[in-house]
């Protein structure tokens, strides 16, 4: 068996010694929607990746098949040292129901989630939104990632199609662009600040 270290390429990049607090944001969305791209655009380190083996309930009822299977789920992440003391981590993960066990743990303690959507495949994001709304209380903002061949709908039409609450922010973004991606984070944190659960001061 190879040693884990022998094929480790990137030298580790430590946080500044003053950093003593971490917070996280989830980046969720359907396959290929731009999660890794957005994380890479804002992260101060090259995005890292871990994999987890999870047991998932298989979709549909097939009497011949066991109803559980094991899959490998990848999680990419990056970080931004936002102040001398605080590091913000962005964890990108598929948000589908069958991965719930993995991202339920991730959602715990999160400031919120960016839900990335692609207007070419709006219906792919329904399941992710359902999971967030039904199974978590975390604030989220919807990020419409613009691809060259994406039809350009007015945001209010996308909001209606996704059946978002009036207070849920929805923003357009180019996930390859740092300022554009940082703006989505600002939108999310501003939204989170309106949630009673974050009102308490507990530095």
């Amino acid at each position: 068996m190879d040693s884990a270290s022998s094929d480790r390429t990137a030298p580790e990049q430590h946080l500044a010694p003053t950093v003593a607090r971490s917070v996280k944001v989830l980046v969720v969305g359907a396959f290929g929607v731009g999660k890794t791209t957005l994380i890479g655009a804002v992260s101060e380190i090259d995005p890292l990746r871990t994999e987890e083996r999870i047991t998932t309930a298989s979709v549909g009822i097939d009497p011949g098949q066991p109803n559980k299977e094991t899959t490998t789920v990848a999680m990419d992440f990056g970080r931004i040292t936002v102040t001398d003391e605080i590091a913000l981590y962005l964890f990108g993960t598929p948000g589908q129901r069958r991965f719930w066990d993995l991202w339920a743990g991730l959602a715990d303690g999160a400031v919120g989630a960016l839900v990335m959507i692609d207007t070419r495949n709006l219906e792919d994001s329904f399941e992710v939104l359902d999971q967030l709304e039904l199974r978590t209380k975390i604030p989220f903002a919807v990020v419409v990632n613009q691809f060259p061949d994406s039809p350009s709908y007015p945001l209010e039409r996308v909001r209606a199609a996704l059946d978002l609450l009036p207070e849920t922010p929805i923003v357009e973004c180019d996930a390859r662009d740092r300022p554009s991606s940082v703006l989505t984070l600002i939108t999310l944190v501003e939204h989170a600040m309106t949630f009673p659960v974050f009102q308490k001061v507990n530095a």
Partner: protein
Amino acid sequence: MDTEEYRDHPVRSYVLTSGRAHPSRNTLRPETLVRAVESRPVLSTAGRLERELVQLCRGTLALAEVAAYLQLPVSLVAVMVSDLVDSGNLTIRSNHQAHVLPGKDILEKILDGLRKL
């Protein structure tokens, strides 16, 4: 998905963590910051991976970062970190309690920081 790269399987996790599948504490999250306690030598009974983990943490890293560098699942690294905190080789750097959400003051600092990027 590239499963070739995937290095872990349940049996190996089980062996590495001496038969425990879950960390003794549930205070560890992927974003929890950890750091080595420099003054504390690693026990001679510690395995190669434990040593490597402590070596990685001579500066502050989040648990997920440690997992990514070691190419191991976060769940397994959480168990190892938990043991190394118990043995005094690692310390939890993030000073907040688990399951306590950041307060409004923290969110304000984050916003300020993001606006300056």
